[in-house]
């Protein structure tokens, strides 16, 4: 027989080892916060706190009673971890981004920091975890009894509880980490995880290959019902248990603690996604063989829950039994320690501290006091939780199968699931909905599963259980509303989780979320869009200004923000970033209000000033979104300005078209007028010639000559019109040759010599040497010069008419200026004389159709030159012909 003293000595040594590991790691992580301790393997091993003594001892018992069913407890977590990308990753991201300290903290902050929700969740957690802790006490006590024989159960359980409370208090509350991380404890439970895995495998190997003759021998003569269990194995209970275990790996406070809160790096989750299922696989692979061999070799009255320990003992393998005891001890202690830390964090943060702060309100509590208060409240909470566990163990008498107790806790924490999933995937979920759902679920769980679990006459009398309270059979706790014939567990899950989810859904749809709630909902549901990694943990003045600077950059733009901060720093007489002062906050708030409105600016700045509770990265994201909106609206306004401009251009074009249309009408009316005058003359004289027989021969000749003249005038007019239309449409091709302008001028003057007025006019020709040439069409330049010179002669009303023609070269051009002393044209006339059918003020009736100048200008332009009226400083004017020099 294994001696009790040896057992206690080994246990003490093991506990001291755990202390040493936790202490060493805590010290080490204070000095160097990274290293192998932050590896994904340690993270995975810490998650294996899921495998409690319920796994270590209870799984074998479950396999002995219900066959393969025990596997469901490990299949659920396997599925959750294999599908980590869809749920766990989001939880971890939210946990890191919002510095969540517990599952109560996560759910309550999602629903607008509701304190009533936090209190309710904490209460449910305490009540649900209590039986689970009792289960650990029970298993340690029983395993001790197996070895020590006659030890008193209650005394043993009491000392086990006290010892665990001491360990948890020493390491769980040694210091207060801002993120609620406990590196020392995590390292210790990782070590325990290895011990329990090796112990179970060692026992498994011994049983399979030491007692039986290999795997085939173990399963050889097994009755199929031993594997199928008493009921249909792949039935409702199978589904329910898998669902429950999948829920538990997320919702159990201790699992949330190690998976989310203690997570150091998000990428560790990727490794844990297969390593943790592999660990579970390793833990369960020998469960079936141990159970089956135990059923064969152990006496029929032996408790299958203790096969792991009793089989080696029965075969006198004391060192193996001791190892197995340590494995079970490890499973129990790691669970109790982490669960106590997780639940005590919730109790102290959500129940004790708010109450204490309310009581202390008005007194001058300084930071140190609050810190001490927090530590004390944690320690007391841990004590209370273990005390409750002990009391449950005491009350329930320690008679139930281990598995049943664990499942009660599972269903209890499963009540968190609807609010949790709804909170992180559905923005419409409201706080009232979560409260109602949790309340209904909790009440139904207590009524259908928790209270009946005490059994006997502790809470419900036997009569109440079998016939319903006051004999109302519809209210029977295990056949509510007549839903009989199902397994009590399945029944409880259907009622509590179903009722919870439906109530949550319906009430959420019927109620309104507060503003803070809506904001938090957006932050949680869109966590991957919103935050990148965890916010920095350093909280100093310069850090604040850095945040302010980032915020200002996002909203004001990079350069204006830099200017503003330089200015602020200068005011403070510092370089770099200014220190965070009220003046800085006020100034920035004013600046930001210009971009995003006063309310948002106030909310954001006061958040950085430490007066609000929303994550910094989230605010910056709001700023980003605002910036995007501003950008979009700017683009829209650009687009609309562009449209405005196009419309303006269209209006202008339309206006020009109208003017052109009017000009065309005028042109037509003028042209018909011009054509009509000679036509009328021709018509009337020809009529006279036809109708009158006795016309004097002199008159007859005169009439015919008038008709002839007028016909020629008509022809000339039509020629001119044809010319101008061809010139203006650009269809007239002019052959340009090298021409001497002086010669062209003289030619034109010669052609004019027949005009009667020319004799009186003095013509003066100035010009450079004869070597100046222009590119022009000889006939056309003659036509233009003739037109200009004859105008100068015709409209000159001076007593001694003079014409001065000067030619000079100007760069690439040659200018021919024609000046006369007849007063020239006024500036007003200059604007219109090139219009068709316009005549100068001096032209009398019948002096021409008024097409000479427009045609001349068109000709000049067709020869790449121009015809303009130039004014001198004294107001006198001249016609200037401009041509390209040859």
């Amino acid at each position: 027989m294994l001696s009790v003293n040896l057992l206690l000595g080994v246990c003490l040594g093991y506990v001291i080892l755990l202390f040493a590991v936790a202490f060493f790691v805590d010290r080490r992580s204070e000095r160097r916060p990274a290293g192998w301790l932050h590896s994904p393997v340690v993270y995975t091993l810490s998650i294996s706190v899921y495998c409690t003594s319920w796994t270590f001892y209870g799984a074998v018992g479950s396999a002995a009673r219900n066959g393969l069913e025990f596997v469901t407890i490990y299949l659920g977590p396997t599925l959750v971890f294999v599908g980590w990308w869809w749920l766990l990753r989001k939880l971890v991201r939210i946990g890191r981004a919002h510095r969540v300290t517990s599952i109560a903290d996560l759910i309550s902050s999602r629903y607008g920091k509701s304190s009533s929700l936090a209190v309710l969740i904490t209460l449910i957690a305490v009540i649900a975890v209590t039986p689970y802790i009792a289960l650990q006490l029970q298993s340690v006590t029983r395993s001790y009894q197996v070895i020590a024989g006659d030890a008193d159960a209650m005394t043993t359980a009491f000392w086990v509880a006290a010892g665990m409370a001491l360990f948890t208090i020493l390491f769980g509350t040694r210091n207060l980490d801002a993120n609620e991380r406990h590196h020392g404890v995590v390292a210790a439970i990782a070590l325990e995880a290895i011990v329990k895995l090796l112990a179970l495998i060692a026992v498994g190997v011994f049983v399979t290959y030491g007692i039986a003759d290999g795997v085939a021998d173990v399963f050889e003569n097994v009755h199929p019902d031993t594997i199928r269990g008493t009921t249909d194995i792949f039935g409702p209970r199978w589904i329910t248990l898998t669902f429950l275990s999948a829920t538990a790996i997320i919702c159990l406070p201790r699992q949330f603690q190690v998976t989310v809160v203690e997570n150091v790096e998000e990428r560790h989750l990727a490794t844990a996604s297969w390593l943790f299922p592999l660990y579970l696989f390793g833990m369960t692979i020998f469960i079936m063989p141990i159970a089956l061999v135990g059923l064969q070799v152990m006496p029929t009255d032996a408790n299958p829950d203790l096969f792991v320990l009793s089989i080696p003992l029965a075969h006198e393998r004391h060192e193996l039994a001791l190892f197995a005891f340590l494995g079970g001890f490890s499973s129990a202690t790691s669970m109790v320690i982490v669960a106590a830390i997780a639940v005590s964090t919730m109790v102290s943060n959500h129940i004790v501290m708010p109450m204490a702060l309310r009581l202390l309100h008005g007194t001058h509590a300084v930071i140190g006091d609050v810190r001490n208060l927090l530590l004390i409240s944690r320690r007391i909470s841990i004590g209370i939780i273990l005390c409750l566990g002990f009391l449950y163990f005491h009350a329930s008498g320690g008679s139930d199968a281990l598995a049943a107790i664990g499942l009660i806790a599972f269903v209890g924490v499963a009540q968190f699931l609807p609010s949790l999933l709804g909170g992180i995937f559905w923005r419409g979920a409201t706080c009232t909905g979560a409260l109602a759902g949790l309340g209904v679920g909790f009440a139904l769980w207590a009524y259908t599963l928790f209270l009946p679990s005490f059994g006997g006459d502790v809470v419900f009398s036997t009569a109440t259980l079998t016939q319903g309270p006051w004999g109302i059979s519809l209210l029977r706790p295990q056949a509510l509303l007549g839903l009989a014939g199902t397994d009590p567990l399945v029944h409880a899950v259907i009622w509590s989780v179903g009722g919870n989810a439906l109530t949550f859904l319906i009430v959420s749809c019927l109620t309104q979320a507060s503003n803070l709630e809506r904001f938090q909902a957006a932050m949680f549901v869109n966590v991957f869009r919103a935050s990148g990694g965890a916010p920095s943990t350093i909280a100093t003045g310069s850090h604040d200004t850095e945040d302010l600077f980032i915020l200002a950059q996002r909203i004001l733009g990079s350069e204006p923000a830099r200017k503003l901060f330089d200015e602020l720093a200068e005011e403070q007489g510092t370089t770099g970033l200014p220190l965070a002062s009220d003046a800085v906050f006020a100034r920035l708030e004013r600046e930001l209000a210009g971009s995003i409105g006063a309310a948002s600016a106030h909310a954001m700045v006061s958040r950085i000033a430490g007066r609000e509770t929303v994550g910094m990265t989230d605010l910056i994201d709001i700023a980003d979104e605002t910036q995007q909106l501003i950008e979009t609206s700017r683009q829209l306004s650009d687009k609309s300005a562009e449209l405005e401009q196009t419309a303006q251009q269209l209006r202008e074009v339309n206006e020009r078209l109208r003017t052109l249309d009017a000009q065309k009408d005028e042109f037509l009316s003028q042209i018909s007028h011009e054509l009509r005058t000679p036509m009328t003359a021709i018509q009337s004289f020809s009529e006279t010639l036809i109708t009158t027989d006795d016309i004097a021969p002199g008159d007859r000749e005169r009439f015919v000559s008038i008709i002839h003249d007028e016909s020629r005038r008509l022809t000339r007019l039509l020629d001119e019109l044809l010319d101008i239309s061809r010139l203006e449409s650009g269809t007239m091709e002019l052959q340009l040759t090298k021409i001497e302008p002086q010669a062209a001028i003289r030619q034109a003057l010669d052609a004019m010599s027949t005009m009667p007025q020319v004799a009186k006019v003095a013509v003066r020709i100035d010009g450079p040497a004869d070597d100046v040439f222009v590119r022009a069409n000889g006939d056309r330049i003659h036509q233009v010069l003739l037109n200009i010179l004859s105008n100068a002669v015709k409209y000159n009303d001076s007593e001694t008419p003079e014409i001065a023609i000067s030619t000079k070269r100007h760069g690439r051009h040659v200018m021919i200026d024609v000046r006369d002393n007849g007063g020239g044209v006024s500036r007003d006339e200059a604007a219109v004389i090139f219009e068709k059918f316009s005549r100068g003020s001096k032209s009398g009736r019948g002096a021409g159709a008024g097409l000479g100048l427009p045609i001349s200008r068109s000709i000049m332009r067709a020869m790449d030159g121009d015809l303009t009226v130039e004014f001198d400083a004294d107001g006198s004017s001249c016609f200037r012909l401009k041509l390209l020099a040859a």
Partner: protein
Amino acid sequence: MPDQDMTQTPGRRARDRAMAILLVGIALLMPPVAQVFLVDDHILGLPIPVLYIFVVWGALILGAMMISGPLKKSEARGPGAGAGGNGAPDPQERPPGD
């Protein structure tokens, strides 16, 4: 996030696989598929239901192991889910004297 579609083709595949492995796992481990293997016979000395559950379990672990690498990569690269941190300013945007 206009660049999402350009960078996530490998990531999207990894994510599709993550969803597929989860759904296949649930389908294989739950009735009615699991009931098909509820046969009173032995293979390699093991009862078929036990063998079936553990083989599926092992396959899930292997599958998860194979996709965890690509998923981790896609997360490090993914624009929305990047670990780069939207909250931190770019180095060149840091204020002077920082």
